[in-house]
């Protein structure tokens, strides 16, 4: 298991390679990216910020919960903070497991918990120059 709040681009292939093991029959990659339209406004980019220290520990807790529940230690998650452009990866989750069903469930658990618990915020920059704090929908 490894988790990180990072200020550099995330390399999904590198994360996928980290969880590779001969006993794993399924390796699942989730990439969350910055999209160009939100709630009808044209987005030019996003600024992510985090509660440093707590974001790291909360992310580690979420991944530890998934690892215990679905019985795999082959999980790596990185969340990026700072200024991101359209199409940039903001979060990457890789889960490997002997079986696909558990990998899908663990990956889904991690993204849903992260969206409710991770102390990370984003401010959208719009094409027209406005900026706005946005929140996750339930």
């Amino acid at each position: 298991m490894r988790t990180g709040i990072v200020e550099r681009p995330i390399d999904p292939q590198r994360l996928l390679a980290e969880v590779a093991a001969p006993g794993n029959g399924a390796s699942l990659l989730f990439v969350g990216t910055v999209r160009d339209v939100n709630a009808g406004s044209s987005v030019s980019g996003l600024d992510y910020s985090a509660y440093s220290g707590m974001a790291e520990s909360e992310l580690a807790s979420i991944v530890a919960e998934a690892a215990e529940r679905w019985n795999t230690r082959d999980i790596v998650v990185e969340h990026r903070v700072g200024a991101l452009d359209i199409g940039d990866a903001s979060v990457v989750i890789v889960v490997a497991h002997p079986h696909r069903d558990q990998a899908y469930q663990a990956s889904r658990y991690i993204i849903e918990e992260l969206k409710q618990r991770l102390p990370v915020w984003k401010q959208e920059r719009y094409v027209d120059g406005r900026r706005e704090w946005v929140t996750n929908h339930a």
Partner: protein
Amino acid sequence: MTLRVLLFASYADALGAPAVSVDLPAGARVRDLLARVQAMAAGKRIPDKPMVAVNKRYATPDQLLAATDEVAIIPPVAGG
């Protein structure tokens, strides 16, 4: 005791600072601290029951506070 309360994102914007100081009597709980912050000039812009972290863990309104605690008021999160 005087506690420094960390603010982030929209809450930091609302109060115009990344942190505020709050004076509290010994034995104060999270809810008492919130009432003090909400009584500040711009504090009304913080909702009734926001998420609060004490020492980087989510806390309940009942949690007792100590002078050495790091308290943060957590705006609606937006990770992912």
